[in-house]
């Protein structure tokens, strides 16, 4: 009994391997239904066939697995799940770092549905606030604007700008004061976005992200013409649907993204919606023969200066008296916050840290690989010092470890696939072992390998005495 359960876990991780080899998409699936979900997608040959929500009941008791020593655990499955979200292509791709994005929010009657709680409308506006914050954090030198679809027309919520505070204020206002009503009009919204993005400089991206809850669009003309002009203006459109797939959205995304189908996604539940929404904060991969024209930009890097209270002066951007500010490096005009364009000489003013914020997109941290029991010599996570489980003594597991070693060979072109049987994850550069929590934290938040940065192994300065140091202390 116990043995067969163990095998079940094995199967699970193998399946992961296949799944990731095939499609490394941003979407994620959950728990037990993940296999089925992916299967369906593959069968559909690239076409999205999301299941209805009711088909996806999560039965938490099915996740429970009995381990060899008779305890119930879902730990490994959970780890696999966490890892699955983490695994993505880490080859450094050229990305559009300087972005111009229009966010289109559906505010039609369809948004008052309560299939997403508390309602589609409120949830969308809440997530939109998170999106705005995350967007500016990930893309500090980018711009965005927000448009609503309501009553068959497009309504401007906030103008295209680099100031998150303004967007968030407007979104909050809308949430309190407006109700979803009328029909949405994709064409009107797209035309408004096209007009807003018309002046976006050619070195940046031009993107439209549409949150679309309805299944219809109330258009005044032929939307095909609009799509053609979008392509001409090199604007790419992504859509996140909230109810079901709509043919025109699929066509819109495919055509404006040069045949790429993955830009149209359907949210299955609240969490999935949030994930899809926030995934759009990641700078898009730049395509070849590009839409963006690389250029050399002139930028100023002003230093912060503070004057004494009796020498306050007005900032040129908001005309408010401030003590702190940054002087334009070309004309010495005072602006109160960065990044900004100098109101006088229109030099782009940034902090060097704004540029640094995007560097991790350009130099992503390598994915760490699973460690088999055979190699699990470490006692604790290199970063957080959490103690690792000890290698089991039982025969079956030892055999398993051996088999893996023979199959895989020693050199590590190991492919990361899911949960590690030993609970350890290894950086292939420095060889340090980490726990799952640190794996996730380092890849999603810090973008540093503690081992490589901490002079462990790999580095030219210190050959092998990495963890050795720590161990010698106590001997």
């Amino acid at each position, binding site marked *: 009994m116990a043995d067969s359960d163990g095998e079940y876990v094995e199967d699970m991780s193998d399946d992961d391997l296949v799944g990731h080899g095939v499609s490394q998409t941003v979407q994620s699936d959950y728990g037990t239904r993940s296999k089925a979900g992916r299967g369906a997608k593959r069968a559909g040959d690239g076409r999205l066939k999301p299941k209805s929500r009711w088909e996806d009941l999560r039965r938490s008791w099915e996740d429970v697995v009995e381990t060899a020593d008779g305890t119930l655990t879902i730990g490994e499955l959970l780890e696999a799940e966490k890892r699955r979200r983490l695994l993505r292509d880490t080859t450094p791709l050229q990305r559009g770092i300087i972005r111009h994005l229009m966010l289109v929010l559906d505010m039609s009657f369809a948004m008052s549905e309560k299939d997403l709680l508390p309602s589609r409308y409120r949830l969308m506006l809440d997530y939109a606030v998170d999106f705005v914050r995350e967007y500016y954090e990930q893309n500090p030198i980018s711009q965005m604007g927000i448009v609503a679809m309501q009553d068959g027309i497009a309504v401007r919520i906030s103008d295209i700008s680099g100031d998150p505070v303004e967007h968030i204020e407007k979104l909050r206002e809308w949430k309190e004061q407006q109700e979803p009503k009328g029909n949405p009009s994709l064409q009107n919204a797209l035309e408004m976005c096209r007009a807003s993005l018309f002046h976006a400089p050619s070195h940046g991206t031009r993107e439209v992200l549409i949150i679309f809850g309805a299944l219809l669009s109330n258009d005044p003309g032929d939307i095909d013409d609009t799509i053609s002009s979008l392509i001409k203006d090199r604007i790419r459109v992504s859509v996140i649907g909230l109810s079901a797939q709509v043919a025109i959205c699929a066509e819109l995304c495919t055509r404006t993204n040069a045949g790429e189908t993955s830009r149209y996604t359907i949210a299955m539940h609240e969490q999935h919606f949030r994930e899809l929404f926030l995934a759009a904060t990641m700078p898009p991969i730049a395509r070849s023969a590009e839409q963006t024209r690389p*250029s050399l930009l002139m930028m*100023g890097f002003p230093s912060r200066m503070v004057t004494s209270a009796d020498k306050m002066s007005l900032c040129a951007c908001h005309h408010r008296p401030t003590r702190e500010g940054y002087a334009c490096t070309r004309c010495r005009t005072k602006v109160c916050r960065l990044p900004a364009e100098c109101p006088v000489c229109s030099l782009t003013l940034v902090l060097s840290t704004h540029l640094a914020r995007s560097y991790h997109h350009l130099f992503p941290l390598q994915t760490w690989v699973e460690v088999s029991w055979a190699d699990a010599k470490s006692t604790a996570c290199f970063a957080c010092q959490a103690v690792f489980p000890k290698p089991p003594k039982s025969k079956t597991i030892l055999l398993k470890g051996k088999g893996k070693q023979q199959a895989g060979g020693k050199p590590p072109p190991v492919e990361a696939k899911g949960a590690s049987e030993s609970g350890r994850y290894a950086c292939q550069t420095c060889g340090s072992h980490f726990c799952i929590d640190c794996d996730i*934290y380092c890849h999603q*938040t810090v973008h540093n390998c503690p081992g490589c940065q901490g002079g462990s192994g790999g580095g030219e300065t210190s050959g092998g005495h990495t963890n050795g140091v720590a161990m010698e202390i106590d001997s």
Partner: protein
Amino acid sequence: MNPLDVVDDSTHYHSRGTVSVPNLLTIIIDTNPRAWAALANVLPLSQAIATIFVYANSHLAFSDDHHVALLASHCNRAVWLYPEPPTPTKPPSEDVEMGDAGSGKPSQPAPSANKFHQFAKLEASVLRSVRSLIDNTTAADVASTTTTQIPGALTLALAFINKMHLAVMGGSGRRGISPPPDTEPAHKNHRRSRIAVRARILIISVSDSSAEQYIPTMNAVFAAAHSEIPIDTLSLRGSPTFLQQASHITRGNFINVLEPRGLLQYLMVGCASAGLTPDPNDNTASGNRARMKLGKQTPVPPQGGDGGDPLFAPRAESVDFRAACFCHGSVIDTGFVCSICLSIFCDIPDGGVCRTCGTKLALGNYGARPAVSAAAKGKEVQAEG
């Protein structure tokens, strides 16, 4: 947000009766041997460490919920001083011992009756670690580099804080059925989560920032800013430009120590304001009030103090945010940036080809813009003068 949740989840933080948020102070000591050699006449390392003990103890003494962690950022590696990494010989215990790890060392001397157990433990552990760190430093190690591993130490500290956060939140993988749909990466959902651990990082810096550590340092700093962890810097020597920026971005304090012999005073007065003083509003774990309120979207200049702290920490008057060009490493205030890889150059590269990524770049007519009329020009000059 039931305050009781916190109590339930943090059984190994002895919160006796009162509900409070664990407060973790992480001290990173820059142990760069060259720099300490230069400081030896004024403040030897041993004395600095003794001073840091006093400071750490004062933090620990404040409450049961106060924890400390110490790291060394050495010339070639970053090392945990306290809690010490578990030994391979010791049977690993099941639970993660966060602030209290390193207990039960067989080699530990008999505890002195005259010293608080926590203090003695900390002291023994740190002294042992530092000694072994120094013993294991070869002349070659010192010769090979002039800098220190601040990014590594910061990353370790952040990972540790993150782990503690997870342990308190109960989101760590070893706990059973906790992950509802909300187990997304801590980084995505933290804004909605309450602050489970109040953490600060204090860096005792003696070295200059080195240009090649810029990206990893900044990665760590952004992560700290994201998790609302202030980084305080006490610069005894050298010019740690990146740490100055770090403190500014994370809203910590940057203090340039003019008189290293007064280290204790700098620590107690300069860095205690936020680290030690209990926040009257935050004791209830209601979490509505994160230590630093909102305003995190961009590194906006702080509005002077955090509002809740009884002491106003000294603020750096001006922060050097000028960039170093990638071609010569010279500091510039106006430069040219490749729109693809964001490399910074001090002049227009030959033929408009980016020297880093090799992309052919379109050039603009820089500075040729506003065609100011003679009349307006005159006015401008007048206004300036």
